């Protein structure tokens, strides 16, 4: 099975990614596209204890999931290309406006040089683009040890922490 990064460690992915039509297995954790979740909600809600996650595209409105969040153990946000920055805002909305506490996973064109920012906006899991060495991608999480501004992590802005101006 493929390896992903979760909470700063490389782990075997224990979730099954389903498309719009693939049969839903009775057991195991599954991720379904947003449309399928909305259409088959009653059936999917019944298997919530076994693990259901939803996959959002970059043009999906995260507020569509507002009332469903307690049922969802995972939300995956797609990055069709790493330059498409919409998923960063989606993550902050899910974490900071909607209070989502489950696994927030970046999927698609997920590369080493973006994971530090992705973590700051609230992703705690990363499925690197196939072919990339997860170790290398993991290293990207350490590019910086600090940040200027608040985001979906517990960094206090530097302007609140720093030394006062030297006396002229």
């Amino acid at each position, binding site marked *: 099975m493929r390896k992903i990064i979760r909470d700063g460690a490389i782990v075997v992915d224990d979730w099954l990614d389903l498309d719009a039509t693939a049969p839903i297995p009775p057991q195991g954790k599954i991720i379904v596209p947003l449309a399928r979740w909305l259409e088959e909600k009653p059936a999917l809600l019944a298997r919530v204890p076994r693990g259901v996650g939803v996959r959002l595209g970059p043009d999906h409105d995260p507020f569509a999931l507002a009332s469903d969040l307690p049922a969802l153990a995972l939300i995956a946000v797609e990055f069709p290309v790493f330059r498409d920055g919409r998923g960063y805002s989606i993550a902050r909305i899910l974490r900071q406006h909607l209070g989502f506490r489950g696994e927030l996973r970046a999927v698609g064109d997920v590369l080493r040089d973006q994971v530090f*920012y992705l973590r700051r906006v609230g992703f705690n899991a990363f499925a690197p683009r196939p072919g990339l060495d997860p170790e290398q991608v993991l290293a990207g999480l350490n*590019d910086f040890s600090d940040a*200027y501004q608040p985001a979906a992590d517990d960094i206090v802005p530097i302007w609140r922490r720093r030394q006062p101006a030297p006396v002229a």
Partner: protein
Amino acid sequence: MYVYDRHDQTLIEERVAQFRDQTRRFLAGELSEEEFRPLRLMNGLYIQRHAPMLRIAIPYGLLSAQQLRKLAAIARRYDKGYGHFTTRQNLQLNWPRLEDVPEILAELASVQMHAIQTSGNCIRNITSDHLAGIAADEVADPRPFCELIRQWATLHPEFSYLPRKFKIAVSGAAHDRAAIKVHDIGLLLRKDADGALGFAVYVGGGLGRTPMIGELIRPFLHRRELLPYLEAILRVYNLQGRRDNIHRARIKILVKALGPAEFARQVEAEFERTRQNPDLLLDDDAIAAMQRFFAPPPYDPTAAEERDHLHWLQQDAAFARWYARNTVPHKQPGYRGVFVALKGFGRAPGDMSSEQMEAVADLAERYNFGEIRVTHTQNLLLAHVRERDTHAVWQELNRHQLAAPVIGTLSDMIACPGLDFCALANAGSIDVAEQIRQRFEDLDYLYDLGDLRLNISGCMNACGHHHLGHIGILGVDKRGEEYYQLTLGGRGGLDAALGERLGPAVPKHEVAETVARILETYVALRQPGESFLDTVQRVGIAPFKASVYAEPVSEERAHA
């Protein structure tokens, strides 16, 4: 000015290490060109016509003498001994080697400088009023807010992959010298009816191929809520700005498509949420702490009593001419703001040699509390020179060809790098600027023409802000030939307007003659004391059109 502590320094050094590794991986083939491109752009590195171009950030145009000296040393060591100041108050090096860039960044970091977000689809260098803190018409000094916005925007995790570049300008004065209405966000410091300090917020202004004047979406935003409001604007834009067409991707297109009222409504809805985040609110302590970095330097309260310069103003006509044109009043009695003119003497507007940078750094230390400012008109400013010292400063500037007494005149042109350096150019800018300068060398005529802004861009990306020139010149390509489209009546400021197109483009060698005809028309039509811009506004462009296109300047235009 703002001074780093260990937090800032750590971040900047980690950024250098990160870019060093990214460059190494690119050169080793581990990163594709497509993957490396946005990374290098976010660090100000372009691949240009001849060589890479590195754009170094000068936050809101403010530099220390030590920093300017470092720029001089970098330009000498890694480039050809000069740099180019831009309309966005940054410095460009046109000839660095890609392999050297990590080293250049390390040298910059040693003086609290960097190239972060000087390009790329992210929040760019914040620009401001070059007279901040010294102008009498100021409501409040914009620089503490510029610095807070800079910090909020620097390495922003959410807004580093926006649909397109994003520019913010802040002004704190009655006269807008920061062109806030042609920025993605323009912030104007103002007080509400109760005397509370806050901002009027404009969005969706911009130049480029679809120039637009910004829309006022919030007449008053309390200073405390500045960052939550900016975050709301950026989030709406990040989620909804177009990503399918690079020419439709700026926020101005989104504001236009939704309509300013609907755009404002969506921003307000998001703002209702972002303002709940206490970490983003700027309490008065945080603002006061930042204001201390921009406190006035220790002026001599008796400075106004020393009047030595009055003697020189009477004795030395050249000095008096320079003083009248190249210095500005200061709110502190006995002080003046002194422009360092990066114009004239056959140089490209904004170009400065390493020797000149070092000379100005020396002057700043001796006479100006060690501070230098970059203006968006591609000059420098020594903002706090004692009046009695102006003659000595002038002599020194003169020695280094930095005292062309032309600030604010036709010769104080803005020009982008154009065909000489820029891969996107249709036509030259620098040679056209030189052609015009040579044609109007007579100072008396220049002074008689009065205040005049002439701006030149080498293509419709408008880096030379041609739309805002009283006379704007845009390079276009006509069947492989360099042609120039002229506009009249453009202006920045709170009554900003885009220039109106004069008529068909003219070939390169006719540009100066065309400008001459425009100016002759002005001189003939003006009322006593009326400026060029006022005359254009009063009479419209028809008379100018008539004089320019009445008879061909040369053979080829008759057939063009």
